């Protein structure tokens, strides 16, 4: 009899505290979920630019700045390759600038510097500028997809460049 009483009390206590913590936990989880929006109003990650023939390379690398302001992308044309360099410093993510007369990229934040092809040669940046997925669509236009990023070791992978 006495044992029954005690176990009922502790049972109710368990239920009580259990539902208290469950309710608190669910509220906290709900508040956390609330902080992750379902819809983002950010630019789509892929964008189309014109046909490869527009980007005539000289004898050396050519840097095209046309998409930097809007998409943070430089198009670089080598002798027979085109690739998209991500305008985002590999140090802490500032946007470097292109200096055509010196032929290098410089990051204003902590002074990293990169060659035309994105190779780092000064400052704290740990690796060359990343490259972005580049492909030719059915109409022959170049399409760049910023959601696929290639770091230094993947520069020769399919998708990191297009042959011309």
């Amino acid at each position, binding site marked *: 009899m006495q044992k029954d009483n005690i176990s009922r009390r502790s049972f109710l206590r368990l239920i009580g505290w259990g539902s208290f913590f469950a309710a608190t936990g669910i509220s906290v989880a709900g508040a*956390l979920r609330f*902080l*992750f*929006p379902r819809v*983002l*109003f*950010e630019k789509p990650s892929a964008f189309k630019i014109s046909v490869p023939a527009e980007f005539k390379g000289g004898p050396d690398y050519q840097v095209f700045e046309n998409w930097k302001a809007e998409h943070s992308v430089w198009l670089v044309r080598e002798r027979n390759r085109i690739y998209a360099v991500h305008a985002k410093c590999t140090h*802490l*993510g*500032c946007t470097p600038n292109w200096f055509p007369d010196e032929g290098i990229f410089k990051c*204003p*934040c902590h002074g990293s510097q990169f060659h035309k092809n994105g190779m780092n040669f000064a400052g704290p940046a740990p690796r060359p500028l990343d490259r972005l997925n580049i492909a030719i669509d059915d109409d022959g236009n170049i399409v760049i997809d910023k959601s696929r990023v290639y770091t230094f070791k993947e520069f020769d992978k399919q998708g990191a460049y297009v042959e011309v």
Partner: protein
Amino acid sequence: MWRFKHSQIYKSIFRHGYEDTKENRIRQIRSNIFLHVHPAKIPEHAMKIRFTWCMGGITFFLFLVETVTGILLMFYYRPVPEYAYLDIKYLEFDVPFGVVLRNLHRWAAHLMVITIMLHMLRVFLTGSYKPPREFNWVVGVTLLVLTFLLSFTGYLLPWDQLAYWAITVGTNMVRSMPVIGHEGPFAVVDKYHDVRFMLLGGTEIGGNALLRFYVLHIMALPSAALIFIGVHFWRIRKDGGISRPL
């Protein structure tokens, strides 16, 4: 003063005289909601400026300055990309005393970071973190971190180049946090579910980020700081006031 106290006007407001005794002085402090945090009696050692440096008190004073000037700035500032920078410019160049308030807010914040660190240096040098005050040191470290976070969250709000890139760099570091940052070691989340995404309300710095930093800056962090300041002061009182010279 004596003449005023015996005037008709004074007597019509304060009917009874106030007997200036030790007991009444203590009562005055203890029965006043604003003064009750203050000790009724102050031991002599607490007055020694060469011991305390008064850095904790100054830090708290600066926190109050931040609160007052911050609330005033809120009357003009809108945390929206279209307006934020213009509102700051408006404050700076057109609003009467706007530039004074903004700079008070700014300089007091800079000073607060300095004084809180000097305060901790003093507490460390005088050994005031030792038992029974160990936990108050922990509360103090929390307040230090909150001060840094308050400074940092305030930094984005002018939405100028300096602010924008500083927050870019700052939140890029969060990417690399272990477990909860998507580029950190043992990452368990992708870039749409990591702590950076939660801070920015997106994957890049935009309107959502500005609004979030604003809410953190004006509500979340100050409220947390206020609670910890309360505990900090209460602990000081319970531990017998300011620690004494050894």
